[in-house]
């Protein structure tokens, strides 16, 4: 099993959700994040003074999947999130040792979906 964590542009969340659904990946968790990457931040002005906004708003998605779903999930995220502009984000994949469904106590492959 793998845990896929992706940072995407907030305005792309709906599109990513849609493409995940199309790929029959129905489970995910979302958190708010601030990100700092290649997109170096932009400058704003408030009351004449400069704001260096280099922590940009991002959305963080976590999806735990069985190994055969890793590639489809990555493809779906890319499909929904890519605009080709800097700031599109990153996908990170880590090994998932165990997964438990709290309601039933099921473990592993059965629990994940």
């Amino acid at each position, binding site marked *: 099993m793998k845990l896929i964590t992706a940072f995407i542009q907030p305005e792309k969340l709906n599109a990513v959700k849609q493409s995940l659904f199309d790929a029959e990946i129905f489970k995910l968790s979302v958190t708010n994040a601030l990100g700092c990457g290649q997109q170096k931040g932009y400058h704003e002005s*408030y009351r004449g003074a400069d704001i260096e906004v280099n922590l940009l708003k991002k959305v963080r998605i976590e999806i735990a999947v069985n190994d055969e779903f890793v590639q489809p999930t990555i493809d779906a995220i890319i499909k929904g999130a890519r605009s080709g502009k800097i700031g599109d984000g990153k996908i990170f994949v880590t090994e998932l040792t165990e997964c438990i469904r709290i309601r039933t106590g099921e473990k592993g492959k059965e629990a994940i979906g």
Partner: protein
Amino acid sequence: MMKWKAWLPAILLALPLMGFVPTALGQEEAADDAAAAVEEAVEEAAPVSVEMFTVNNTWMMVSTFLVFIMHLGFASVESGLTRAKNTVNILFKNTAIVAIGLLTYALCGFNLMYPGDFNGWFGFAGFGINPGADYSPIAYAGGNYSYWTDFLFQGMFAATAATIVSGAVAERIKLHSFLIFSALYVAVAYPIAGSWQWGGGWLSAKGFHDFAGSTLVHSVGGWAALAGVLVLGPRLGKYVNGSVRAIPGHNMPLVTIGVFLLWLGWFGFNGGSVLSADAEGTSYVLVTTSLAAAAGILASMLTSWIVQKKPDLSMALNGCLAGLVGITAGADVVSISASIIIGLIAGIIVVFSVIAFDKIKIDDPVGAISVHLVCGVWGTLATGIWGTDCNFMVQLTGVIAYGIFCFIIAFALFFLLKITLGIRVPEEEELRGLDIGEHGMEAYSGFQIFSNQ
């Protein structure tokens, strides 16, 4: 357990009507008396004592303050009912409108709306404000108010029309195009339309009755709102695959503050429209106004409870405004029972209207068209039904005349702006929010907000 609940609303709805019917007759009389008192107050031109002049003017100044605070009410309601990412933009528009409204009203609006003797359709008494060389404060309006109070009270009304538009076109209109539209609409269209009735024009000659502006102010704003929404189109994500998706407002306490301030302001809007402090006239108007507002709340609250299954706060608050808009045309000439009925019906109308506009994909984030246009029309017609000495067909004529004039002008303005400067922000800006896009600022810096809705 659920069954009694289905009855409850109906029972509650019936309750306030009971007990009023038996006394309705007596109140009809009271309304007549009050109407007479208002009439007298307005028409009386006999010389008055300086004391009377002073108290009249004091009342009109207080009313001016109350109408002023309605702008804060609008700003609060509109920003609260939209998303956090567009808040700065809405607040900015509402602040700018007050300034633009007052300044253009001083520049030309006042003298367009009250041109003195004129052909009944269009007149202009010149730029700037100036009471003239032979100005005598006490004689200016029969001792009811000074020239300056007259200007300021009317000036505070002026900006309202544009503010109504602001809410309907929120979350997608370009700032500069909106400001240009507002300046022109408030400086020219509103006062010309106003002159037909309040300036002593052709409609007033016909016997049209619009006490404080269900039509002259609210529907004038409402028609422009409708035109704006039609030219702009709905917000992204509102109508997806043929289904309507809710885009919830971000700050309900702010909406509530706004609605209470608007009710408060309406005391001056209607109370001040008596145009003197006449005790019987003003206080009667305040009672009809308040009861209509209360009835509007009750009706919309119960209607939404029945229709949407859960009582919707934003609907209850819209219902309050609906009742207020509804009573505005006839607050001085309808009976107590009629005022309650007008409010109740307005409260019911507004709920169905909001839902209906969504059905036909007219996306009005704050319900401005339902509240100000639909209930403005309702109130004007209702005055034709229940108002002492009012005529339904004349009321209808007025409604239609204003509709044609305002809708065409507003549509033309928006359309011209669309093909020249553009009126809609780019899609990306709309998704990220106009606060960042137009102002480079956030309304709630530091707060964690999901802006992807």
